[in-house]
């Protein structure tokens, strides 16, 4: 950590070219599960600011705290300690309905296992979300963005894994979220399919200016990010900015 201390604080300084508006403002964020001797500390105080238009990759092994952090950012869980602001609004103290509203309006989730509703077609899976949020794009438009226009009336069981994940991305972006949270989005996919999925995420981030946060244990993905944070044992142990984002195709698969 001593090397990192000489650098300008990369976890709070916006990278060049990124928008100045911080989406997340996080200080001393900690999460402890359980109490007493059974207490397990999953996050031990992390600090960072994430900005609009950024693509952030959170790297870490299993148990490093990256999923816990993503849950905090996504409003699925509340911190035990520290500050967690979304556009100045205190997410850490929000109640159940506040968090639901936050997820509904601001967050697009992409899951490792896609989590599509099997009884709804691709188009309907997206429409399910656009029905409940304020300023959505048309489901068809979202599906076009991920290159699934021709297959939008298929059911999940009729789609390949990569296609299913792209439907999930379309579902996540159709609400025009401020932040796209992706949990191991390529974890269940082969390399080729993984590339198409990552390209979709990258394009959304670039074209719509959505903050994209990807958590993964696959270090190769670091090159496509503006900034990369490595977590271990509930702390950020490394943070660096890429001077230039690599294209997904050029990643060293």
């Amino acid at each position: 950590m001593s090397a990192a201390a000489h650098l300008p604080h990369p976890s709070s300084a916006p990278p060049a070219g990124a928008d100045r508006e911080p989406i997340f403002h996080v200080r001393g964020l900690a999460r402890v599960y359980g109490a007493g001797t059974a207490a397990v500390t999953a996050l031990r105080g992390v600090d960072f600011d994430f900005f609009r238009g950024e693509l952030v990759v959170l790297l870490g092994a299993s148990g490093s705290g990256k999923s816990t952090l993503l849950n905090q950012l996504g409003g699925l869980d509340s911190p035990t300690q520290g500050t967690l602001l979304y556009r100045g609004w205190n997410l850490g103290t929000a109640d159940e309905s506040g968090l639901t509203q936050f997820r509904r309006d601001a967050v697009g989730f992409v899951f490792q296992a896609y989590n599509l509703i099997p009884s709804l077609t691709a188009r309907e899976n997206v429409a399910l979300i656009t029905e409940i949020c304020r300023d959505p794009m048309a489901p068809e438009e979202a599906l076009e963005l991920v290159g699934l226009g021709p297959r939008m009336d298929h059911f999940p069981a009729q789609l390949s894994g990569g296609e299913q994940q792209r439907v999930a991305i379309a579902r996540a972006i159709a609400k025009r979220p401020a932040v796209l949270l992706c949990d191991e989005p390529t974890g269940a996919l082969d390399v080729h399919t993984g590339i198409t999925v990552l390209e979709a995420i990258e394009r959304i981030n670039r074209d719509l200016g959505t903050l994209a946060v990807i958590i993964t244990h696959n270090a190769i993905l670091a090159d496509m990010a503006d900034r990369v944070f490595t977590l271990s044992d509930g702390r950020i142990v490394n943070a660096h900015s890429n001077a230039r984002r690599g294209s997904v195709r050029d990643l060293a698969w």
Partner: protein
Amino acid sequence: MSLLDRKLLRDLIALKSQAFAVALVMACGLAMMVTTRSLILSLESTRDTYYREHRFADVFARLKRAPNAVREQLAAIPGVATVQTSIAIQVTLDVPGLPEPAVGLLNSLPERGEPVLNRPYVRSGRLPLGRTTRGELAVGEAFAEAHGLKPGGAISAILNGTKRDFRLSGIVLSPEFVFEAPPGAALPDNKTYGVFWMPYKELATAFQLYGAFNNVAIALAPGASEGAVIAAVNRVLAPYGARGAYARVDHPSHRRVDDEIRVLQGLSLAFPLVFLSVAAFMTNSVLSRQIALQREQIAMLKACGFSNRQVGAHYFKFSFAIVIVGVLFGAIGGVYLGHQLVEMYHLFFRFPRLDFVLDARVLVAAAGVSALAAFTGVAGAVRRAVHLPPAEAMRPEAPASFRPALLERIGGARWFSASFRMALRNIERRPIRSGLTCLALALATGILIVPNSFRDGIAYVIDFQWDIVQRQTVTLTLVEPGPSRAIADFQHLPGVELAEPFRYVPVELRAGPISRRLTLQGLPERGTLSRVIDAEPRQLTLPARGIVISSKLADILHVRPGDEVIAKVLEGRERELAVPVIGLAEDFAGMAAYMELHALNRLLLEGDRISGAHLVVNASRWSDFLHAVKHTPRAAGCVIKNSIRDGFRKTTGESIGLLQKMYLLFAIIVAFGVIYNSARISLSERTRELATLRVLGFSRREVGAVLVGELVLLTVAALPLGLVIGAGFAQGIISSVNTETVRLPLVLTADNYAFAILVVACASALSAWFAARKLADINLVSALKALD
């Protein structure tokens, strides 16, 4: 305990509320079965012991009067083992504390020794035996209890026109009066009808019958022909005003007990089986879900070397554990309800003691039936689990295939919301399971219809019998049929505003080989008080020729209007005549036949005679009227409509009311059980889907709506089907209660349907609420986890 059994125990604890719901539904079916079968056993064994120990006779005969010497002729009939002759006479009673007169049936006790047949059982005090006249009576228990009479108490009776005071020597029961009520009554009215025993000499003397008898009881020798003896008895008694001998099966008290057993038999099988089928379906759905959730565990067990047999046995044990709990609760519930219902039978039937006897065979059979139901319920699911190759089972189940639902394919798609589509497609993807859930919900709805159709049927009977048919205030009968001018005496009683005469005569109606004994009623052509009503209901006019009979009697005799029946008069001069049936009357207790009064008298060749009159009495002169009646020597009986109606209401309230509440409770349990179980399974199957929706920003309520949408659709589809099924159940059960002594009409009211719908809707809402509460426990983070 093996580790696999420990796993079973923990799985069961985890699924406790669902397992409990299934066990409870099973327990309801079993409790019904155990209760009804045990009551049948209790009644039959108690009755048979009582009959044997107290020597209930095989053949009975009533007559006007025969000298005692005729007894030897009867004893000489081949096949007759024992003859007992006695006097039985109906009189008016004056009971302390009862404003109206009551009717007493006085039976004589032998001059020497104790009765050899139909021996009374002395509950307390003693029988007034011997030849001395001490002014003592023994009283039947039901009447004594209704009036709080004790040995040593007093009662007055009008014997042949003279009021006499008696002391009660004891309280007794008799196998002849297990059902202590006037012949043909559906329910006892112990306030106004009682049975008494007194010394022969005293009773005979009062009615100038000393040295004669008017009542015969006969025990048959083993192997004797009942029919031949009856024919011979009729021949012997013919000159003495015989009213026709009859066998035990036609004995009114015996028949009433028999009918009750028949009703119980009707209730003991079909209805419980519906409950057990529902329980089998529920076991299947719970276990199928459990097996689906434990695919990986099954694979692991098999990969580690457990045999198919062991894995299969493990899951069968799961359902048997539910059966054991169900049988246990069913047995406890059945025994408890059995005890309650035995108490209820004390209202109807008087045995020295009627104890609840648990029919252990039924318990074993019921356990077997439930185990079989559970077994068939889960066999398919277990077989699938066992045949799953380990490698395949290790992988999560492939995503389910869906397609647009039929409603969408035919063009309804645009109208539906996404959550509605999810529900529709889920239903269509598993048509069998959806169909079975729908059927179970329909059965739960249907079961709810039955108990209230009892209640509504009884309410209808009460209105029909006492508002439409009988509109008199009171009915007075004469000691002996008298000339029609007696009506004038009745009209002069205080407060009487209207009097209509009637003539009652015992007859046997026959069509082909089938015959029934009953009272033929002669009524005015178109009376205003006691009316003859058909099924419409509409008043029938009695023409100068022909007979109107109960539609139940028409069914039994296989006759229709236009056919002829043979009427054999069983009183006075014996006559047989063919009369055409000209109409069918609706009635719900016993069986009746009606003729126009003058036509009947012509038939009897007796001139203008009446048995009594129906009266309307002004309420303001009521007590004067009652006082006058108590002192009218010629009035043998006085039946007050309102007290009969109140008695009926009270007795049905305590008997059928109890059954109705019991069935209602069971039905509600089934409705809740089925719906709660469906909601829980749906919740379990869709946890991941629902968690995803929550993460995507659906509120808990919106997700709840998705969860219950399917259930609501199935419930909506099930309700109309349930109402139809319920009407069928009610029809079936009511027709099994359709006996010669008691009947219930099938009355299905909008209220009844609305109640069933309301209960099922409430059960749905509550179950949905329970399930939705479980939604709060869904771990949102779990949705983010990969399926591994």
